[in-house]
């Protein structure tokens, strides 16, 4: 009876919430990106190394022209649970880059070939230079962008997400952003002529011109060279650099869950045994003097 009342109270609160949510124009600002299916979603999700390798190629040949990726080291490319390049391949990628090092004995900075311990060099020496080269807009660093971008799920979805483990808002948004360039609607005023209209970008006016198009990057593994495929691959790659230990995390999580459930079961039966006498008959517990 009491439970029913509680449920009723919550239902009333929910109805109130729903009624309140409608007048808020705030939520309409961002268009909800479509859900994609990801190999790394769910409790047993894993990155697809082939997809990450393709995504890396897209990043390297397109995104890297403007976007830095400061937290990624070349060695990460060969680590388990990632694109799983061989160590030699990672070293070869590193060697393609020139890294500023020094000072040498003469006190001068010099450039040397990249090593696997190095971070990916940024395309611009500093934020001001990046702004100057990009019409005053700073291309954000890509290292954790897949975790730094999201969209509002709203009630009741955010409650359900707790159970369904939906947490790929970041890559869903990034994919949608790549695919979201449209002709500007007639009634929309662009704040600057260098900007583009993107239906998924908050506020719609984005500084980045459409970065990808069909056949822009050559895939070696026969995957379709389409805008859509590129978008998904590079989003998956960005998710990996934001959360490089996701595969290990979910694997360990499964082991921990099994352990905890077994342990809880044992404790439950132990508790029943211990309390057996007390539950059966009051005063059955002998008191220590």
């Amino acid at each position: 009876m009491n439970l029913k009342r509680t449920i009723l109270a919550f239902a009333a609160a929910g109805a109130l919430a729903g009624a309140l949510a409608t007048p808020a124009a705030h939520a309409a600002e961002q268009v909800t990106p479509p859900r994609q299916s990801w190999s790394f979603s769910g409790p047993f999700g894993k990155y697809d190394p082939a997809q990450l390798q393709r995504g890396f190629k897209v990043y390297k040949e397109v995104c890297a022209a403007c976007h830095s990726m400061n937290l990624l080291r070349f060695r990460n490319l060969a680590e388990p649970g990632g694109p799983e390049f061989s160590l030699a391949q990672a070293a070869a990628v590193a060697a393609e880059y020139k890294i500023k090092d020094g000072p040498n004995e003469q006190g001068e900075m010099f450039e040397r070939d990249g090593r696997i311990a190095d971070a990916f060099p940024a395309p611009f020496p500093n934020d001001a230079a990046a702004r100057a080269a990009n019409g005053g807009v700073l291309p954000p660093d890509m290292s954790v962008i897949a975790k730094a971008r999201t969209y509002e799920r709203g009630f009741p979805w955010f409650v359900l997400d707790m159970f369904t483990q939906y947490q790929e808002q970041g890559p869903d948004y990034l994919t949608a952003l790549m695919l979201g360039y449209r002709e500007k609607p007639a009634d929309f005023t662009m704040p600057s002529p260098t900007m583009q209209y993107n239906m998924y970008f908050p506020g719609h006016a984005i500084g980045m011109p459409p970065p990808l198009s069909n056949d822009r990057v050559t895939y070696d593994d026969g995957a379709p060279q389409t805008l859509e495929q590129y978008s998904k691959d590079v989003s998956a790659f960005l998710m990996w650099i934001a959360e490089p230990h996701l595969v290990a995390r979910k694997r360990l999580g499964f082991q921990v869950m099994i352990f905890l459930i077994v342990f809880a079961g044992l404790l439950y039966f132990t508790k029943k045994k211990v309390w057996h006498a007390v539950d059966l008959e009051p005063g059955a517990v002998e008191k220590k003097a």
Partner: protein
Amino acid sequence: MTTMSSAGHTRRDFLYVATGAVAATGAAATLIPLIAQMNPDASTIAAGAPIEVDLGPIAEGQVIKVFWRGKPIFINHRTKKQIEEAQNVNLASLPDPQPDSARVKEGHAQWQVLIGICTHLGCIPIAHQGTYDGYFCPCHGSVYDTSGRIRSGPAPLNLLLPPYEFVSDTRIQIG
């Protein structure tokens, strides 16, 4: 309810033992990440990769210091006199007997590469000091010869050798 069957006892005891064993396993497993986190992390390990050193600029009689894995590596371009002194020592008189040939690479006797850390308690010895024109540790007075072998003082062992190889006549790779 006054007597309990022995079967009940066994089952209860098994349950208690099993629960205790699972608890102990969990506690032990929890320690793994807490201990492992103090081991060198991935960036430290990657930064400890082998380094290459160009020996060309090192003059005869000069000792240079480079760092590999946070350790000072002494590279000594030994003179003829130093090499002879190092080779003509009565091994039996040494605290840690080792011929000079075992402490240099074959055919490169003029290049002495050492980890410059005193084997006593980790101080850095000073080159070209001490009775043997080798190394002298200022902390507790250990004296090493031009081959880096301990001759007197509290240090128990000769200066250690880092793993290294000659990639050419004038370049070595340490590590």
